[in-house]
C-alpha cells in the first residue's frame, strides 16, 4: 500500500513538472491528448481488465459526453461546470439502462453488441443535424473558467486535463484495491464462483459499465471544452478500436499500463507523420503481436523480457 502511494506521488510530481521540463505549445497540446486518452483507457480498462467485459463502443460514450457538454453550453448557454456533471449523469444513467440487457451477453456476443451500440450512437451524431450540426460538427464550445482563469492555452489545459486524469487514476487505483476491485477480479476469473461467494455479479457488471461510461463522458466533456469543437469523426468505430489497442498494449488490469498504452498510441502518430495513413497497419499489427507474444501488455511484458535477458546473460557468463 505504501509502495502504491509512493509510486502515485512520484508519477503525479513528474506529471506536474513536465511543463517546466518540456517547452513548446505543440508538445503540450499532444500531452493534453495523452491525458484525455489515459482517462478513456482507464475507463475501458476498469471494464475489460478488471471485470473482464469487453466493449467496442466506448468511443460512443466519449462522444455522448462531448456532444452533451457542447450542446448544453452552446445551444442552451449552460455553464460548462454544470454541463459536465449533467452530461456525466445522463450518460451514466443511459449506460446503466442499456447495461442490464447488454451485459447479459458474453465474449463475442458482448463485443458485437457494444460495437453495434457504438455505431448507432455514431449514426445519431451524424443524422440529428439540427442538434449536433451533423458531419460538419459543432463549434463555439466555451472553455472552462475557474476563479477568473480561462483554460484557453495549451499549458493551462495541460494542468486542467492532468488534474482530472490524476484524480481518475487515484480513484481507479483505490477502487482496484478495494472490496469492489477484488469482487470485479473474481467476476473476471469466474462469474459462477464469484456469485457463489456472494458477489452480485450482474449488478456489479452493470455498475462498472456505468462507471466506465461516466469516466468516458467526463473525458468527452473535457475534450469538448478544450478543443471548443467536436465532430462525429472523432467518435467512430476506429476510435473504439484505438482505445482497445491502448488498453491491450499497456496491460489489462493495470492503471499505469493504461497510461503507458495511451501515451504510446497518442505519441506514435506524431513520430509517424510521414506514414500518416498507414498507422492503422501498425495498430493492427501491434494488437496481434501483443496478444500473441505479450498478453500481459507492456507493463508486465517488459519486466519479464528484462528478467529473461538478464538471467540468460548471467547464465551465459557463468
Amino acid at each position: 500500500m505504501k509502495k502504491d502511494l509512493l509510486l502515485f506521488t512520484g508519477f503525479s510530481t513528474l506529471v506536474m513538472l513536465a511543463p517546466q521540463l518540456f517547452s513548446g505549445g505543440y508538445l503540450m497540446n499532444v500531452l493534453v491528448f495523452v491525458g484525455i486518452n489515459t482517462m478513456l483507457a482507464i475507463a475501458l480498462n476498469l471494464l475489460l481488465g478488471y471485470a473482464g467485459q469487453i466493449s467496442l463502443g466506448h468511443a460512443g460514450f466519449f462522444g455522448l459526453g462531448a456532444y452533451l457538454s457542447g450542446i448544453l453550453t452552446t445551444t442552451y448557454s449552460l455553464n460548462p461546470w454544470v454541463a459536465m456533471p449533467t452530461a456525466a449523469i445522463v450518460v451514466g444513467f443511459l449506460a446503466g439502462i442499456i447495461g442490464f440487457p447488454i451485459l447479459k451477453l458474453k465474449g463475442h456476443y458482448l463485443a458485437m453488441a457494444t460495437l453495434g451500440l457504438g455505431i448507432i450512437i455514431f449514426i445519431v451524431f451524424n443524422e440529428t443535424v439540427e442538434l449536433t450540426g451533423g458531419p460538419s460538427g459543432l463549434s463555439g464550445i466555451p472553455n472552462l473558467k475557474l476563479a477568473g482563469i480561462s483554460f484557453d492555452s495549451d499549458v493551462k489545459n495541460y494542468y486542467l486535463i492532468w488534474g482530472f486524469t490524476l484524480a481518475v487514476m487515484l480513484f481507479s487505483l483505490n477502487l482496484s484495491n478495494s472490496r469492489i476491485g477484488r469482487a470485479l477480479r473474481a467476476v473476471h476469473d469466474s462469474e459462477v464462483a464469484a456469485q457463489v461467494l456472494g458477489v452480485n455479479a450482474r449488478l456489479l457488471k452493470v455498475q462498472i459499465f456505468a462507471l466506465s461510461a461516466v469516466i468516458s463522458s467526463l473525458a468527452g466533456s473535457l475534450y469538448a471544452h478544450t478543443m471548443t469543437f467536436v465532430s462525429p469523426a472523432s467518435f467512430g468505430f476506429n476510435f473504439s478500436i484505438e482505445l482497445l489497442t491502448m488498453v491491450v498494449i499497456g496491460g489489462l488490469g493495470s492503471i499505469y499500463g493504461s497510461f503507458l498504452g495511451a501515451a504510446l498510441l497518442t505519441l506514435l502518430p506524431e513520430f509517424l507523420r510521414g506514414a500518416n495513413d498507414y498507422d492503422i497497419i501498425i495498430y493492427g499489427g501491434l494488437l496481434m503481436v501483443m496478444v500473441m507474444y505479450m498478453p500481459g501488455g507492456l507493463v508486465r511484458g517488459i519486466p519479464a523480457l528484462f528478467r529473461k535477458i538478464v538471467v540468460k546473460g548471467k547464465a551465459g557468463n557463468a
Partner: protein
Amino acid sequence: MQFDQILQYVLSGLSTGAIYALIGIGFSIIYNATGIINFAQGEFVMLGGLLTLSCLELLKLPLWAAIPCAIAVSTVVGILFERLAIRPLKQPTPINLVIITIGGSILIRGLAMLVWGKDTHAIPPFSGDTPIAIGGATILPQHLWILAITLIIILINKVYFYHTISGKAMRACSYNRRAAGLVGIDVRRMVLFSFIISSAMGAVAGIIVAPLTMIAYDVGVMLGLKGFCAAIIGGMSSGVSTVIGGLILGVLESLGAGLISSGYKDAIAFIILLLILFIRPQGLFGKADSERV
C-alpha cells in the same frame, strides 16, 4: 404506384440480403467449428472484390478466369490468417480471440489500402446493365446473378455438410469438438477447413456485389457487421435460417431507407442486432436451449 415502389425496395433488398446471407454463413461456419467470431470476415468480402478488379485490369484476365483467381487468393489469405494468427495463440480466451481477429482485420484493411489506395473502384457487371422489368419495378441483371449464385452456393454447402465425409466431420466438430477428436477427426484440420470455406464464401460475396455497389478498401467493416447480424437472426446456423436472416435484414434495410430515411439505413441493422441479442439470442428460429448468452 405505392405498391410498385415497395416492390422495388423489396427486390433490391433481397439481393443485398443475399450478400448478407453469404457473409453470415461464413461467420457461422467458423463459429460452429471453432467457437470464434471472426471479426475479419468482412475483409474477405473486400478482398474478393478488389482482387477481381486487379485480375481484370492488371492481369487482363477475362471475367470467368478473374473470379476463381480472386477466390483462390482470398482463400490463401484466409489460410495464412488461421495459421499465423489463430493457431499460434497460446491463450485462446474469447477476449483474446476478439482482439486478435480485430487486429487481423485492421491489418488486412491497412494492407489493402496500401495496395489499392483509398479510391472507390467499380467492376463491370457480369452481363450488361439493361434493366429488367418485373411488375412495376425494375431490377438489374446483376441482381439476378447475386440471387442465383447465392442459391448455388447454399446448395453446394448443403451437399458438403450432409453428404461428404469432411462436411460431416465438420458438423461433428460443431456439436462437440472433444468428442469429434475422440472419434478420430482431426479437429485442427477442420478449423483450417472452416477458414478456407468462409474466406472463399466471403470473397464470392464481394465479387458478386462489387458491380452493384462499388468496392473500396474499407467496405469490409460494414458488410461484415451486417453479415454477422444476418447470422445472429438465423441463430448462427450455416443453413437456411441464416439465409432468411440475411433476406429479412436486406429487405427491412431497403424499406427503411426508402420509406423512413436513408441516413438511418445502417442503424436499422444494428438496432435489429441489439434487439435479437437482447430478446432472442438463440436467433429467430432457434430453440432456447443453446448456451449463447
